[in-house]
């Protein structure tokens, strides 16, 4: 690092430590909220009364005028609180923690104060306002109905603007840095910023119907793929890469020794960001998603294990010679446990991506346990370690109590283990029970609700585990508060040499991209992609060429190691070429997966079924279904698995959700699948079930929905919604607004009549008059939201046969022509009849 000291000016800089301080306080505050809501959700899955009925129970001893009278509170149902919990945990708790870690470390790694204090303030307050917006809108049922992407469109725009401000501030800080090389933590921050922007924008493309509602432009399988490309990479690039960057800065600092292998971190970084983006389809195994995409997801998920463990090994070995600190330093304890959980969940993830494992585990609590071992173990413990390390530095006093921090560690660790182990058992037990058949293999032996009942005691342990974790986190709140109170805010100052002649950011674009490493990587990947996509024969040729390129690349690398290394050293001293390389690496996987599904002729890829259009009333009911968050517990995707088909009917076809904006395939079955629910039961059954699920099944944990029997259908908004549906490609016929409204009212009356005929109980609000005649009762019911929801539920699974496609031979009917899709080929030897024979 020698440079000409004659051109250097020695200056003192003061870091902006106020911004990380604020973000830390925000993260801790929202962390408590997120975990508290999570614990409430966990108890809701044990006791349906926690969905609001509990207030009636708690006030029953009071004088009547003080008693709370309701079977449920709409703002507190699991379907609405679960999105609040996930969004708060991801974007509020981890988001603020990430910003805290990034703002603090970037300044030190760049030897420069953050570029703009104003941008930092706008970033901080903007982000908090978005979180407040989410906390108000999600319980109100204002949601997009896509997991981790529930926020309504005005908030989406706000997120985008604030993210751009953050990016601007970060990259301008890189530009004015006084350190030539970009340290590995900064690479991970760069990858986070550009990839989250890409994912967020694509998955939030939508057309508004009002200020608080919009339909996504993608529907059916397209929406499913885009959603899980986003959803999986929200885990990758919001919950993993920034935290890895934080690990690479804070762990060496806490251990007081450099990272074990900086070169391993290079391999770790590039392989991770390149591979992660491809793995999204593993959330859709055995579904109607074309098989080539499923396999692509499986391949890359399994490959992901190597770089993930590379990072874990690099983290743990950083402690070589400093393991004694594990006994005494709570910061190291948290970091080591967090990295271990990272290793465990990144082993479990690829395992769950194997199709046969997924067949058992998907839609069960095993997945929930997996996710929480990552968020509670990896994210939560990294946050705790970082906060305990930072607080003394940000307030200039030692940590208030190491004992309290140690106690937090142990209570948190027991909490996680209890939580995760319970859900492993629950998932496996429920999966096995759901798949269990009699000796003939043609009949299932367990009702869905029996499986829910069986795992109930495990769900209670899960809630207790979550409560322990929250308790530990509250100890952190006390510890940090006391530390801050004993000190005062400190902004670190540092004397640095300001060298205007520092040779950084001078690499030409030609030098960055026209060289051996880029050329060989490009052609190697190009032919590997051809290997995936070309038909048999040609694909083998492409594989051979890929291997030849790989051989030549290795040979060339061995001969010119110094040149290749020099190129990378140069790139890591030039933030713009580096960022462009990251964009290319992450965009490649996304483009290859998503472009074919977006550009394909959808009409030709429906398999043998085409979804019947929703009537305006059914559409209103569907919006209600989305708004209530029913997808959090009920899937609408019958997988190509015997148990699924035996339980729910024929497997779901591509064409059967083609007009679903958003798709509602779901990711968890706390209740049964609803893909073919339509017509199975009467209208009165659904009516009673929504009013009181226990009246149908005493073991049900589903909340009551009394407000659906009070609130009116908004018929006036339907023409606007139909118009937007037409714009996004749903082939509604031309209808006038009057026709739309009239049609909806007539269908509502018809359903209401069946309910009156069935002599259902009609709950009446305080200000409403009891219907005196059957006509009054019918008119009363026809105006209520419950009728539109029933209309939607009775439509589920409705489709028309498509003759042309049915007549086609066993040629591929998946989205990508030329790729044999064996899942859709007849396999008579495993048909039920054969088993019986």
């Amino acid at each position, binding site marked *: *690092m020698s440079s000409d000291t004659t051109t250097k000016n020695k200056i003192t800089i003061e870091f902006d430590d106020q911004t990380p301080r604020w973000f830390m306080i925000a993260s801790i505050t929202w962390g408590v909220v997120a975990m508290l809501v999570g614990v409430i959700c966990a108890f809701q899955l044990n006791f349906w009364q926690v969905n609001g009925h509990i207030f009636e129970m708690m006030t029953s001893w009071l004088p009547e005028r003080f008693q709370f009278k309701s079977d449920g509170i709409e703002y507190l149902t699991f379907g609405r609180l679960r999105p609040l919990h996930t969004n708060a945990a991801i974007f509020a708790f981890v988001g603020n923690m990430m910003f805290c870690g990034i703002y603090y470390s970037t300044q*030190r790694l760049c*030897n420069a104060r953050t570029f703009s204090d104003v941008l930092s303030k706008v970033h901080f307050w903007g982000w908090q306002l978005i979180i407040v917006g989410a906390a108000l809108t999600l319980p109100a049922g204002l949601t997009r109905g896509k997991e981790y992407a529930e926020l309504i469109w005005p908030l989406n725009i706000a997120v985008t603007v604030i993210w751009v401000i953050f990016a601007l501030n970060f990259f301008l800080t890189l530009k004015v840095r006084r350190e030539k*090389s970009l*340290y590995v*933590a900064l690479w991970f921050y760069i990858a986070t910023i550009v990839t989250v922007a890409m994912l967020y924008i694509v998955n939030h493309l939508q057309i508004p119907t009002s200020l608080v509602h919009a339909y996504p432009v993608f529907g059916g399988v397209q929406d499913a793929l885009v959603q899980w490309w986003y959803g999986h990479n929200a885990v990758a690039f919001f919950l993993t890469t920034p935290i890895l960057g934080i690990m690479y*800065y804070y762990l*060496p600092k806490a251990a*007081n020794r*450099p990272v074990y*292998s900086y*070169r*391993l971190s*290079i*391999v770790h970084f590039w392989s991770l960001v390149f591979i992660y983006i491809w793995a999204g389809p593993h959330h859709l195994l*055995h579904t109607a998603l074309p098989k080539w995409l499923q396999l692509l997801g499986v391949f890359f998920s*399994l*490959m992901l*294990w*190597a*770089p993930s463990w*590379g990072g874990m090994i690099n983290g743990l070995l950083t402690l070589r010679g400093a393991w004694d600190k594990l006994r005494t330093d709570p910061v190291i304890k948290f970091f080591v446990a967090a990295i271990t959980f990272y290793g465990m969940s990144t082993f479990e993830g*690829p395992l769950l991506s*194997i*199709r*046969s494992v997924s*067949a*058992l585990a998907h839609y069960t609590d095993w997945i929930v346990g997996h996710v929480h071992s990552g968020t509670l173990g990896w994210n939560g413990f990294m946050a705790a370690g970082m906060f305990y390390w930072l607080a003394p*530095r940000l307030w200039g*006093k*030692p*940590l*208030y*109590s*190491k*004992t*309290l921090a140690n106690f937090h560690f142990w209570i948190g660790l027991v909490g996680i283990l209890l939580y995760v182990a319970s859900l492993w058992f629950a998932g496996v037990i429920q999966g096995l029970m759901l*798949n269990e*058949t009699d*000796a*003939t*293999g043609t009949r299932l032996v367990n009702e869905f609700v029996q499986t829910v009942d069986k795992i109930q005691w495990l769900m209670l342990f899960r809630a207790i585990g979550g409560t322990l974790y929250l308790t530990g986190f509250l100890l952190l709140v006390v510890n940090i508060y006391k530390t801050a109170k004993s000190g005062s805010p400190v902004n*670190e100052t540092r*004397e*640095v*040499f300001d060298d205007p002649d520092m040779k950084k950011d001078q690499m030409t674009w030609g030098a960055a991209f026209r060289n051996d490493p880029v050329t060989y990587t490009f052609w190697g990947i190009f032919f590997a992609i051809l290997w995936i996509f070309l038909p048999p024969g040609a694909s083998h040729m492409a594989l051979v060429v890929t291997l030849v390129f790989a051989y030549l690349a290795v040979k060339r690398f061995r001969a010119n190691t*110094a040149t290749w290394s020099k190129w*990378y*050293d140069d790139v*890591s001293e030039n933030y713009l070429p580096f960022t462009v390389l990251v964009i290319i690496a992450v965009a490649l996987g996304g483009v290859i997966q998503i472009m074919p599904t977006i550009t394909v002729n959808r009409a030709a890829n429906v398999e043998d079924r085409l979804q019947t259009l929703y009537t305006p009333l059914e559409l209103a009911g569907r919006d209600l279904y989305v708004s209530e968050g029913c997808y959090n517990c009920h899937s609408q995707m019958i997988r*190509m*698995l*015997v148990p699924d*088909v035996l339980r729910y009917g*024929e497997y779901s076809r591509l064409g059967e959700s083609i007009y679903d904006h958003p798709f509602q395939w779901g990711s968890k079955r706390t209740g049964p699948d609803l893909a073919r629910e339509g017509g199975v039961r009467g209208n009165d059954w659904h009516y009673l079930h929504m009013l009181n699920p226990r009246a149908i099944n005493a073991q049900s944990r589903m909340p009551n929905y009394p407000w659906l029997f009070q609130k009116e259908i908004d018929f006036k908004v339907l023409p606007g919604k139909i118009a937007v549906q037409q714009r996004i490609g749903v082939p509604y016929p031309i209808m006038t607004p009057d026709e739309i409204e009239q049609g909806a009212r007539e269908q509502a009356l018809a359903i209401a009549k069946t309910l009156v005929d069935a002599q259902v109980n009609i709950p009446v609000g305080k200000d409403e008059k009891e219907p005196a005649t059957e006509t009054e009762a019918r008119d009363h019911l026809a105006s209520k939201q419950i009728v539109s929801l029933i209309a939607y539920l009775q439509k589920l699974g409705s489709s028309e046969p498509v003759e042309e496609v*049915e007549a086609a031979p066993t040629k591929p009917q998946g989205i990508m022509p030329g790729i044999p899709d064996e899942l859709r080929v*007849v*396999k*008579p030897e*495993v048909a039920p009849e054969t088993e019986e024979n």
Partner: protein
Amino acid sequence: MPEMTVWQISSSGRMPRMEVIVLTTLFSVLFAIFFLLLFVRMRQNPDSCADQDSLIPFRGDELTRPPLSPTPGELTAEKNLSEKSTDE
């Protein structure tokens, strides 16, 4: 109606088809070997400045190595931090 293809995973049935497991395991093991070879190779390369870069987080620190630039502010902060916690 087209006949369905199934994966039998229940206790009554057949073993799951193995091709996906075999292929993906093979693919990931190959990748892991490649990954490790690349790492080992890079560890042997003395020309890169990578190991110097690993010291960037310690710029200005007194504790580990001689700082590349003096940091009186940090020294003051570290002195304060060396005080003991209330429970020690």
